[in-house]
């Protein structure tokens, strides 16, 4: 019962985003033991930001990017042309499925994508536009 009450208390603090001691203190009932109240408040406040970050990290979300690697190859020959020198890019994205769905065993899948120079240029154009939109939003 005690653990459950503590759990509810901490969840409430994290949920409401309380950061000031007075706010947390006001949650305790009137005749609560003074020192215990202060001690609990102190401990809770110390941990609040860690808990908040953890909660944010484990929010439901679309699959998230965890890692990314790339390499550039040069294609020298194929069944349609015997001699050529075409550079191409291989991009590997490590994607983790929704943390909330997987519990303690997150499923990470690796997706390898091939990009020609034209595709890469188009993609960079798109990414540049995203960056511009982000700065516009940030500057508002």
């Amino acid at each position, binding site marked *: 019962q005690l653990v459950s009450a503590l759990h509810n208390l901490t*969840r409430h603090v994290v949920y409401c985003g309380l950061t000031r001691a007075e706010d947390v203190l006001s949650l305790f009932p009137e005749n609560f033991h003074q020192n215990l109240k202060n001690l609990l408040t102190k401990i809770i406040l110390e941990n609040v930001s860690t808990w908040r970050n953890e909660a*944010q990290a484990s929010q439901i979300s679309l699959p*998230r990017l965890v890692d*990314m690697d790339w390499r550039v190859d040069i294609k020298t020959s194929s069944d*349609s042309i015997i001699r050529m020198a075409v550079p191409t890019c291989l991009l590997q994205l490590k994607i983790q499925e929704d943390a909330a769905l997987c519990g303690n065993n997150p499923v990470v899948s690796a997706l390898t994508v*091939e990009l020609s120079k034209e595709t890469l240029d188009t993609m*960079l154009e798109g990414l540049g536009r995203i960056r511009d939109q*982000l700065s516009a939003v940030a500057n508002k």
Partner: protein
Amino acid sequence: VSSQQFSALTEVLFRFLTEPKEVERFLAQLADFATMNKISLGPLKNIVKSILLVPNGALKRNLSSEQVKADFIALGLSEEKASYFAEQWKVNSPTLTRLAVGQTLMINQLIDMEWKFGVTAGSSELEKVGSIFLQLKLVIKKGSQLENVYVELTLPQFYSFLHEMERVKTSLESFS
């Protein structure tokens, strides 16, 4: 076959080579050519098949127009017609080469990318969140099917992704 007829036939052939998907149009044009010039379609088709072997082989081996001309003369074509064909070859070969490269095997080719970004307002754990997320939808060709992949990135991840892609571009450009 007179030289005028030959040029017309060559034109039909090259149009097909540069647009290999237009098979029906090619066959229709061949049939027209046959009736206009009073040649029967069967033998014409056979001749065309053998003629087409030359550009296809030339493309594979990156032959110059000189070599193509020599090949044709070796096959018994007159000097004039061979030159004409070689000329057409020179004009069309960039397109044809590009087409052939385009047909080269690509693994999981990226076809399209869409994005949206927004702000997470709240969740069941946190009443007010206010964090920015970026969602990418990548359309990938796996074999003959298209597959959609959805990925979410945080802002720092996005900036390092952008940075890495710019490095890839520099790398690709140094090899072109």
